């Protein structure tokens, strides 16, 4: 019993930074995982990764001008992300080019600009760590930021739920029955950027996009309803955060990658064992043919 306590509870009971890491990453999962579900359903999973890179120049510019202050870096990141998201979205809506190409073009421009800014400061490695924090060093400011982001995300999701679901399943239908089509798309991209910026503060590296996509992708193997998929994704995100932090503590692994890899393990297990995964689907298939 006490061994179990040492294994699971003691790390969080003994150290404040572990409590903060847990609290911050759980909050982040709450906001990012549902957003990830919608990204996945809209076949924009890789766009999350692209957006993560697109944020770099804004955050770097904020750091270069205002120094190591969480607010300018966050605002900078949001602006850069918004420009890329809106630019790519607008190009795909108003020209013949599809969203994947316009997104790739905008994020590459943004990324190059970011690398340029980072290099101006000198050693790029150092600035990358300064920009992206670590889950083990969450201060009150960072926690407040993540909390705010989660609140905004959940609020927007609740408000635009029906429109978002409709956009995912049949965007042309939504545009034909409602003027909300384009605005909802942009609100959604805004949420993606917001959660990625929060993720940088919490998870440290560009890996933060993993907490958005992996639980959502894993949840897809367990349910087909959007609502329950969001719930399952959040639960998987929670589990990944707890496992990752405990792994980082007991096996002395870097915490960011440990969390994302935990989510990755859940994803792989879900492919095999999920109710809509390989094993069950094959069984069901055999029944049908038999």
């Amino acid at each position: 019993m006490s061994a179990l306590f040492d294994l699971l509870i003691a790390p969080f009971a003994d150290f404040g930074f572990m409590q903060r890491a847990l609290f911050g990453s759980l909050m982040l999962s709450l906001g990012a995982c549902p957003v990830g579900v919608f990204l996945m359903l809209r076949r924009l999973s890789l766009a999350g990764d692209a957006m993560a890179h697109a944020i770099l120049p804004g955050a770097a510019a904020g750091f270069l001008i205002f120094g190591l202050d969480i607010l300018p870096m966050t605002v900078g990141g949001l602006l850069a992300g918004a420009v890329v998201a809106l630019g790519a979205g607008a190009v795909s809506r108003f020209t013949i080019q599809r969203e994947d190409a316009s997104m790739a073009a905008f994020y590459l421009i943004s990324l190059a600009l970011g690398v340029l800014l980072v290099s101006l400061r000198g050693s790029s490695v150092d600035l990358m760590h300064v920009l992206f924090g670590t889950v083990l060093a969450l201060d009150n400011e960072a926690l407040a930021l993540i909390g705010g982001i989660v609140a905004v995300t959940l609020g927007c999701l609740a408000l635009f739920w029906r429109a978002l679901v409709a956009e995912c399943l049949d965007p042309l239908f939504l545009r034909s029955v409602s003027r909300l089509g384009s605005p909802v798309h942009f609100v959604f991209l805004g949420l993606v950027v917001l959660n990625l910026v929060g993720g940088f503060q919490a998870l440290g590296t560009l890996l933060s996009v993993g907490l958005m996509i992996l639980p959502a992708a894993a949840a897809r193997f367990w349910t087909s309803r959007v609502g329950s998929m969001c719930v399952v994704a959040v639960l998987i995100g929670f589990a990944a955060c707890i496992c990752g932090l405990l792994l980082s503590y007991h096996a002395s692994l870097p915490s960011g990658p440990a969390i994302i890899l935990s989510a990755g393990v859940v994803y792989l297990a879900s492919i095999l064992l999920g109710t809509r995964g390989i094993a069950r689907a094959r069984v069901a298939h055999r029944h049908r043919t038999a």
Partner: protein
Amino acid sequence: MLKTIHAILALSVITLTGFATLPAFAEPLKVVASFSIIGDFAKNVGGDRVEIITLVGPDGDAHVYEPKPADAVAMAKADVVLVNGLNFEGFLQRLVDASATRAAVVELTKSIEPIEFKPEFAEEAQEESHEGHAHDEHEGHDHGPLDPHAFQSVPNAKVYVKNIADAFCAADAQGCADYRANADAYSRKLDALDGEIRAAIASIPQAKRVVITSHDAFGYFEHEYGLTFLAPQGVSTEAEPSAADVATLVKQARQDKAAALFVENITNPKLVERIAAEAGIKVGGTLYSDSLSPPGGPAATYIDMMRSNTAEIKGAILGS
């Protein structure tokens, strides 16, 4: 053929230097100092009679310095080359070979009793020496490599100064009296500095003389002045720390009741602040270990550097 040319060159150098030393103040003695602290010592001993070129300047790191062609030129023209020794300057042997200098290369740590790196630093220092140092004097398992930062103790600094005066006298006999007088005057200043540091440390309660630093450069300071420097294990220059590393450091700080934290190698300042807040200790300012600050900085000379370090440590511990 090459040998003959070298011999001719050597002869001409000898004759030229022979001529140069004849008139009293014709040519300053050309001195190459390997890094900024030695350059400062040499300036104080040599005064106007010497012209000093410092290879690794202020805020530079002599461990990982890459010599430039201009350094080889300076080295080739030098009359005296002053180095720290104990494998401090990894780049030096290559440079001496490449420049084919005829100058005497003087190791200033000679006749100083070297101490070993503390075990917790030894591993890191070994890695360092495998990477950067041409010659590794690491011998056996229970002996750590030798700590080259001997100048961090003021009594050792006086040995440096004496060795510099000896080297200058050997190269320029006419100026010997000046060099000795300068060295004596500077040594008296160092004595005063030594007393200052001891008084400052004495004003810190015995139980609170514990500091955490990731620098492995303060072994001699610790040895001389009775302060304990703890090493943060695991958390050094690694990019992504693990929760275990941070927890170990926090535990260590709590158990040993360290009073202040000087950790500059951790690239993320927020992490340092977090650790300090968790362990209930303060984050100190900058400690200068291997080089001076640029002119106008808090550690522009050796004496300023030792004063600044002592004040930082005392201030951080006493919380002023």
